[in-house]
């Protein structure tokens, strides 16, 4: 394997990891506060659509990216109201979000653009400014410029969330709300407030994840832009034991697996490509089977809090 192949593998891994990690971090935020969020897939889809639409119409990918975060928060707020205020079953509410996110996005694409695929939109830039990337041109390192600026952002977010969750008073309250909401309540901290903020944050993050798919990996939105990333992100969150750093490592693993399959495919057809493409999903399944049992799920995850109950 050549150096250029290795670099390709690195860039590919990071590229596939980024959207997963955005969404997985969203999952971590929501579930640590005690609200299950299996609606990540739908939120990502809606985010992907919004990013493509805004990036195309404003001509600015950054605006598209931000709009996707807001859109994610908007969609997930339905889940928040249902599961926090009305104590609905969070699995059902999350599933509804998945259908709603996909449905609305595809419908709006058709209504606005009259096709099933949105027109080509400006992409997020590389982490390397043009004048640096210029030097790579023609060298083995030229593929490095494929690393998106959002990839840098997501790894910075891992550090930020780690700091917030484990070093600050806010983190202490979030973790306690997910473990023992009644304890938090009796100390005068509002459980719904903590949970709303965390769920909204998860929507923003998953929205970013979707945006990365539509305006960085590709440059348009269609019904196949998001195909299972939200669920793989959920698996990564569980596999990573509900921590940002764990989610990061498992997303990198999934990203690596995915990229390996791409490389194998290029090298020639020893194994059927259809089989290879199953690898990340099989890995997800295996990870879940092996680790979900002895995982360290927040104790109150998925359980609505009723004041005065114990």
């Amino acid at each position, binding site marked *: 394997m050549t150096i250029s192949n290795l670099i390709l593998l690195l860039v590919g891994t990071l590229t596939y990891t980024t959207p997963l990690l955005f969404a997985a971090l969203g999952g971590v935020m929501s579930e640590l506060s005690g609200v299950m969020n299996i609606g990540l897939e739908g939120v990502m889809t809606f985010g992907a659509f919004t990013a493509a639409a805004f990036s195309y119409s404003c001509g600015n990918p950054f605006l598209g990216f931000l709009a996707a975060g807001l859109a994610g928060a908007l969609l997930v707020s339905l889940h928040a109201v249902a599961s926090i205020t009305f104590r609905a079953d969070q699995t059902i509410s999350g599933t509804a979000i998945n259908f709603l996110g996909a449905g609305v996005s595809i419908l709006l694409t058709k209504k606005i653009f009259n096709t099933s695929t949105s027109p080509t939109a400006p992409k997020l830039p590389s982490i390397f400014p043009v004048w640096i990337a210029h030097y790579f041109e023609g060298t083995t390192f030229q593929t490095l410029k494929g690393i998106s600026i959002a990839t840098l952002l997501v790894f910075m977010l891992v550090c930020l969330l780690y700091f917030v969750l484990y070093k600050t008073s806010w983190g202490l309250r979030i*973790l*306690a709300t997910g473990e023992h909401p009644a304890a*938090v309540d009796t100390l005068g901290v509002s459980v719904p407030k903590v949970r709303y903020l965390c769920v909204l944050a998860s929507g923003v993050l998953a929205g970013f994840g979707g945006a990365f798919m539509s305006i960085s990996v590709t440059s348009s939105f269609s019904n196949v832009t998001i195909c299972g990333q939200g669920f793989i992100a959920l698996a990564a969150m569980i596999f990573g034991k509900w921590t940002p750093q764990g989610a990061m490592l498992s997303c990198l693993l999934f990203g690596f697996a995915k990229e390996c399959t791409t490389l194998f495919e290029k090298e020639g057809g020893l194994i059927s490509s259809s089989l290879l493409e199953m690898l990340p999903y099989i890995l997800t399944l295996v990870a879940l089977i092996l680790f979900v049992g002895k995982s360290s799920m927040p104790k109150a995850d998925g359980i609505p809090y009723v004041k005065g109950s114990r």
Partner: protein
Amino acid sequence: MVDIQKNFGKNHVLKNINFSVGKGTIHALLGENGAGKSTLMNILYGIYKQDFGEIFINGELVEIKSPKVAIEHKIGMVHQHFMLVPTFTVAQNIMLGSELTKGLGMVDFKKANREISKLSEEYGLTINTKKKIEDMAVGMQQRVEILKALYRGAETLILDEPTAVLTPQEINKFMENMRNLARDGKTIIMITHKLNEVKQMCDYCTVIRRGENIITVHTDDYNEQQLASMMVGRELTFGVEKKPAAPKETKLEVQNLIVNDDRGIKRVNGVSFEIRAGEILGVAGVDENGQQELVEAITCLRKTTSGSIKINGKEIQNTTIANVISSGVSTIPEDRHKSGLIMKFSVAENMLLKNYKERPFSKYGRMNKNKINEFASDLAQKFDVRPQDCAELPVKKLSGGNQQKVIIARETSDNPDLLIAVQPTRGLDVGAIEYVHKILVEQRDKGKAVLLVSLELSEIMDVADKIAVMYNGKIVAIVDAAATDEDEIGMLMTGGSKK
């Protein structure tokens, strides 16, 4: 608190309650289960809001909308079920919600540990602030709860049944701590239904009965008997009336039993005893001396390492739970919420848990609801489970005493040879305790063998015919209940020798 009223739906839980506490006193709030004691205190702590009535603190009218407001008024509450995050350290739990921070919202763990240690030493409640709650004994966890309130500057401390979960040693230590706090000028309100503790540590006592009817008295002016009658609203017989035992053939025989716990530590170490039909054997001992593992081995919840357990002469160790039940063993388990009942199920469904497969309740796999409810209503009436017509009510809506009656009804209705009762009166009020004891003696008189395991020494003394004392995994002595006293058993329980 003046004219406090609270309704849950149509139920009037509190009716015109008046309650006042003087600074620096220890005040007991006495009442049966479901009398409304906890509700009243939850109102004072802002968890519930009263429907009617006013609260004054130091003569000033206050509106306590939330625990936050209660904390601002220097009220702290230690709940019966601890409000501690098990995966957090002591310091994290104590400062949660009012964290010490240094810039950027970062928690200053060093300072927190230092201040909490200082606070704990000030009040003589020393604690390791870096230890995790899940690694601590219940008594220490309670200490964390108390410190949590003190850390927030509480002047009034509400404790909801603080001794229910403590061992006798922990209770003594607890009483001492409370007296010290009162001497420092703290006001302590203690919800309880244990009369001896009211007498021993409280200055005043307020009795609540069915959400009303309050009397506040000086505890010195009344004896336990009088307090109990006020609480229940009728005369109670103290002690258990029973005829001498008439033991017959051996029902349970345990020989050289050795049982390990989950970590492979030998918890039951060579225990032998037998129980005959028509007698009650009480197993006395301080918690964690192997009683739990012994019972689990007999009921086949746990594998034995060696030794034998025979029911009616047939070995049953390391078989199945179904086999144990069909051999004629019934169990009133220690934790009625965890292993005695399915709290969301109805009373009828809970009563049927053991014979749900049998006709006429189930025919070709189809449950016959009418027959089941009929069966449950009969049992409920026989065992006086209240409220009446409770067959279809979820069991969690019942009071603790009535929940226990549901278990007892189920476990005695299949006419067992051996009835195992583990802590059968834990958390029950005097009226319900009296009832449970009566049933145990009744079962004995019907010729059943009864194994009673309890941490309450007085219960063992009152009910059992023979007492086996467990210490460190061994039965150190088996004595006749009539020929011994609490002192002797107490000595044996802590590893001392027989008189």
